[in-house]
């Protein structure tokens, strides 16, 4: 049952949703391929749409993946599944926050989890690059121009410090001009 798969995946994901959302891509990718929700390209498009919307990227991705897999009810179930863990955790943690805030054990856990979240995001970039054939060295107009767009996007983000949403929109315009 697709709705149950969606709920289960995103409910579990809600409990480990660290790192602002992009770290959650590997979890979504593996669930999507395991349950056969959608193709890898479609999934990339959903993540792109999630990045263009306001709100947390992990929740936005869940909504779009849910919608894409099971329509409006899929979107609602996925959003609720992502929000529930936040509510549960905040309410339980709030009760004894002063006890765990600055506790050496919690700090130690984050000391290890933070670099692992970084690994998750790097892993997501590698996997997405593979499914979108970015790392394939093939000499054609499209592959070379795409590498160029990749470099320009990174430059705009890192050096020019543009808002990612504008980078996505501009890239879309470039794509329309170049590939249609």
């Amino acid at each position: 049952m697709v709705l149950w798969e969606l709920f289960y995946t995103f409910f579990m994901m809600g409990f480990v949703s660290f790192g602002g959302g992009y770290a959650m891509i590997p979890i979504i990718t593996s669930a999507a391929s395991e349950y056969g929700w959608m193709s890898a390209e479609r999934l990339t498009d959903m993540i792109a749409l999630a990045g263009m919307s306001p709100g947390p990227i992990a929740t936005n991705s869940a909504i779009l993946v849910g919608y894409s897999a099971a329509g409006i009810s899929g979107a609602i179930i996925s959003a609720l599944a992502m929000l529930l863990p936040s509510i549960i955790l905040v309410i339980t943690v709030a009760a004894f926050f002063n006890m765990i805030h600055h506790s050496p054990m919690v700090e130690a856990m984050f000391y290890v989890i933070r670099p692992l979240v970084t690994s998750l995001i790097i892993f997501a970039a590698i996997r997405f690059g593979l499914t979108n054939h970015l790392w394939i060295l093939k000499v054609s107009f499209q592959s070379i121009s795409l590498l160029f767009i990749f470099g320009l996007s990174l430059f705009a983000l890192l050096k020019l410090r543009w808002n990612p949403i504008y980078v996505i929109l501009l890239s879309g315009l470039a794509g329309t001009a170049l590939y249609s």
Partner: protein
Amino acid sequence: MKEQGRKLFQIFWTFFKISPVSFGGGYAMIPLIEKEINEKKKWLTRDDMTEVFALSQTVPGGVGVNSAAFIGHRISGIKGALTAVAGVSLPTFLIVLALGLSYFFVQGHPKLEAAFVSIRVTIIAIILYAAIKIAKTAIVDKITFFIMTAGVPALFFIHPFIVIFIGGLIGIVLTFFKKRPYTGANSKQYKQEDASKNPDNYMWGAGI
């Protein structure tokens, strides 16, 4: 009863108004939440607000949703938490859904397909950018660098849930061997004052 209903509606409406500001993550909302909840409505004190944001950044999930849940809970218990989360989530839910609907509506159009050929590549750049940003706060010494490097190949074989879970366990074990290495120079970046002022942080909803 009527009084409580009005309060709940106020909570809902306050977060409903703030929500669409949160493009790409909750950090943009922090100053607005502070203004509405502390200065205008006087629902919570400044000290409470500091605690709200510290907690919201520690708990998994978006900062906006977490702070809404926390503030709502403080004001009106579990009902308040649910109301605040509904308020903060509904606008973005509708916007995201509208985007999704329009995507599927124009799906297959050559111009849109062409746009997404380029956007897919840009998304990979954005993910890489996210990794670099997070690495700056996560990689504080050789051990964290090693953990990050070992984590990438491990993810090809082990499910992310298990990797994070094992990471937490290793952290607990580490407390017995290593004396507080965890508060490096970078740890101040988790504080809300810095986070809300730094535009870089707007992208990253959770505070890890």
